[in-house]
């Protein structure tokens, strides 16, 4: 591997920086990579179109599934371009044939849905290790590589790009022309809109693929750099020739290396001299550099802490009165905020009615407000007083109260007709029929000035007593 020909500067870095490097590479090589993607994808697209019998959903699914086939050439091209070598287009089929064919099956079957596909691809195509070695290698390389996140992010970018293109088309088609039905574009595979949507998705895939592949490749390179010290190796290779000061040391060592093996007693050098020589070598500027780093560390020494506490005691433990004041202030603020929230919710729930509609009406509207506790005795009293009109009114209100207890929601604005309508929709016939009769009698009495006869009220009362009894007296 000719590391000195690398066109990118490799160094150990976090995974996100590696992805960033991959994106930068993809930007630099985008035209070539994009064209390469289409060179592979277009024939396959047309072939699948014929095989799928013009079923757009099958066509799209097949193209989506075959993504690794279009991504492999991109990776091979990028791996050459990184070492400043631009492969000719004619050489790519040969490279693909050798690199991709044996790994095609795993890529399209059990590795297809792997979230680490971006990292698996260089491992399979560039290293080509057999099963167990591959797994061990993948475990080592994938540690902390964020390749799963890369896949997730790229899928989202694809979706956003696809949605944006579809929405853009939808909004930009002038009125009067046949527009795109967005619902059909998503779920009606027989509609032209679905075909347009599929084409948009394919375009989005082609735009994102170079970035995905290069980012995966950069992750792979960065991880190898970290594990194998490529950057150190590169630094040594690019380092200037050894300075003159080292040459005497090497000259001193040379006789030791070149001399014939001495006798057994003389094989051990003088420890003092060796130590001095080692120290001399270690002192040379090639070994290590010193740098100053400032950082905050927790103080663990109680003695040291004591002296600092004395200086910052006020900040560390504020006086109790101040803490209490702050605490009560916060509690008060929280209580005020809660009250404001409750008030806002209440106002939201019940829009303000004008004063004129609230006075008098609201008090009389609710069935609980005006109904006497003992309705029946009240109705009897009114009948005895020869006022059947008022008696039917009392019976109507008592019925409303009963319906309310039965769980029939009657808003204040419910008129006789709407009460009957609601009762008809939700209550059994044995209740709704007598209630409708009561409401009709009440309507005639109240607004038509036609009070029912006392006997009619008695009949209605006995019906009411019956259905009230069946539903449970209060």
């Amino acid at each position, binding site marked *: 591997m000719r590391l000195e020909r690398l066109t990118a500067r490799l160094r150990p870095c976090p995974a996100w920086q590696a992805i960033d490097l991959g994106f930068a590479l993809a930007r630099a090589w985008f035209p070539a990579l994009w064209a390469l993607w289409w060179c592979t994808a277009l024939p396959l697209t047309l072939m699948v179109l014929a095989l799928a019998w013009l079923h757009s959903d099958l066509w799209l699914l097949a193209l989506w599934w075959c993504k690794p086939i279009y991504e492999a050439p991109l990776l091979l091209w990028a791996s050459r371009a990184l070492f400043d070598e631009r492969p000719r287009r004619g050489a790519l089929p040969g490279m693909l044939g050798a690199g991709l064919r044996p790994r095609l099956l795993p890529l399209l079957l059990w590795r297809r849905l792997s979230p680490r596909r971006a990292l698996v691809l260089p491992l399979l195509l560039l290293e080509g290790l057999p099963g167990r070695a591959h797994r061990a290698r993948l475990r080592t390389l994938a540690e902390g590589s964020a390749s799963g996140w890369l896949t997730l992010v790229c899928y989202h970018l694809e979706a956003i790009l696809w949605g944006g293109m579809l929405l853009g088309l939808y909004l930009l088609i002038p009125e009067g022309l046949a527009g795109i039905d967005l619902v059909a574009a998503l779920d009606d595979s027989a509609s032209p809109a679905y075909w347009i949507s599929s084409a948009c998705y394919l375009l989005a895939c082609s735009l994102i693929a170079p970035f995905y592949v290069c980012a995966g490749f950069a992750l792979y390179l960065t991880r190898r750099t970290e594990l194998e010290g490529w950057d150190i190796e590169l630094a040594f290779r690019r380092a200037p020739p050894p300075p003159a000061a080292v040459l005497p040391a090497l000259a001193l060592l040379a006789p030791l290396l070149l001399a014939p093996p001495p006798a057994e007693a003389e094989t051990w050098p003088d420890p003092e001299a060796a130590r001095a020589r080692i120290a001399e070598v270690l002192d040379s500027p090639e070994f290590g550099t010193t740098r100053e780093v400032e950082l905050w560390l927790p103080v663990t020494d109680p003695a040291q802490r004591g002296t600092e506490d004395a200086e910052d005691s006020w900040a560390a433990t504020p006086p109790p009165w101040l803490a209490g004041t702050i605490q009560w202030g916060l509690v008060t603020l929280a209580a005020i905020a809660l009250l404001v929230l409750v008030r806002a919710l209440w106002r939201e729930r*019940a*829009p*303000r*009615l*004008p004063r*004129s*509609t609230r006075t008098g*009406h*609201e008090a*009389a*509207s609710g*069935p609980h407000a*005006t109904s006497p506790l003992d309705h029946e005795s009240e109705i009897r009293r009114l009948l005895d007083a020869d006022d059947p009109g008022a008696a039917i*009114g009392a019976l*109507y*209100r008592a019925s*409303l109260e009963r319906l309310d207890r039965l769980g029939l929601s009657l*808003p*204040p*604005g*419910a*008129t*006789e*007709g*709407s009460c009957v309508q609601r009762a008809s929709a939700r209550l059994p016939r044995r209740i709704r029929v007598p209630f409708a009769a009561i409401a009709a009698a009440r*309507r*005639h009495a*109240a*607004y*038509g*000035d036609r009070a029912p006869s006392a006997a009619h009220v008695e009949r209605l009362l006995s019906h009411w007593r019956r259905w009230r009894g069946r539903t449970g007296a209060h």
Partner: protein
Amino acid sequence: MTQTPLPLTEAVIQLDQLEQDIGQTVSGQHQAIRELLVALVAAGHALLEGVPGVGKTLLVRALAAAVQGRYARIQFTPDLMPSDVTGHAVFDLKREAFRIRRGPIFCNLLLADEINRAPAKTQAAMLEAMQEGQVTIEGQALTLEPPFLVFATQNPIEQEGTYPLPQAQLDRFLLKIAVAPPSAEAERAAVRAATSGRIGDRLDTSAVRPLLDTETLQRLQLSATTLRLDERVLDYAVALVRAARDWPGVDSGPGPRASIALVRAARAHALIEGRDFTTPDDVRCMVPAVLRHRLRLGAELEIEGVAADALLGDLVERVPAPRD
């Protein structure tokens, strides 16, 4: 000649036949037909709003066929002049004097088709006629012969090249009738009826019999005004209109004319229902048609997409109905 109200039984029979005849001609529009009859009985003008092809014009044509009076139709266009509606003075060479040539507005039933296509000046020419029942030409006030009813139509979706009716003119309409597309079943029946044994797509109102002459119509209108109206029903109607006026989010609410319109409409509805007294139910069911064009919603409600009908639905639920 002093007119007497039509007896209740006779009025109910007439209105029932009228409703049936129009219902045979325009299928699936029971609510719109009922509201149109309310406008007829309450002697109020109505604005019909609906998308093209739902039968707005046919509705009015069918009503005109049932009323034996003078019927006129004006197609409102951007170049329509006020004198095209009201009439104008022409110089008579024989008599050497100006002669008034009366416009199509001199009729009993006027169909103002696509009223919002005419400019404000022409729309304003109708204001006097609708409110005061008279037209002034060359300084001469000419009375319109009663009954005079305007049924205008407008399309809610086409805004280009239209002149929205000003609030003052909208207020002149007793009702704004929303003509919705019919149900699938009714549409099927309408398609069958319109394509069986009929050439072309002319509006066919042959099923409507001429049931009412203008005198009977006026007696019918008088009957509605004599129905009993309890104080509680009156209070309820006024409370509803006042609540709509002060409702949160409403920029400009209905005025007292709306209270009058609501009670008139409720009386007419009670008559159509065959009652000689008005109930809160009559008021409640006329609230949308009477108030929907008299509300101007604020920006907040507009942004939230709250329609006037939804707001009015909430209103009738919240304003207490009489129960004491």
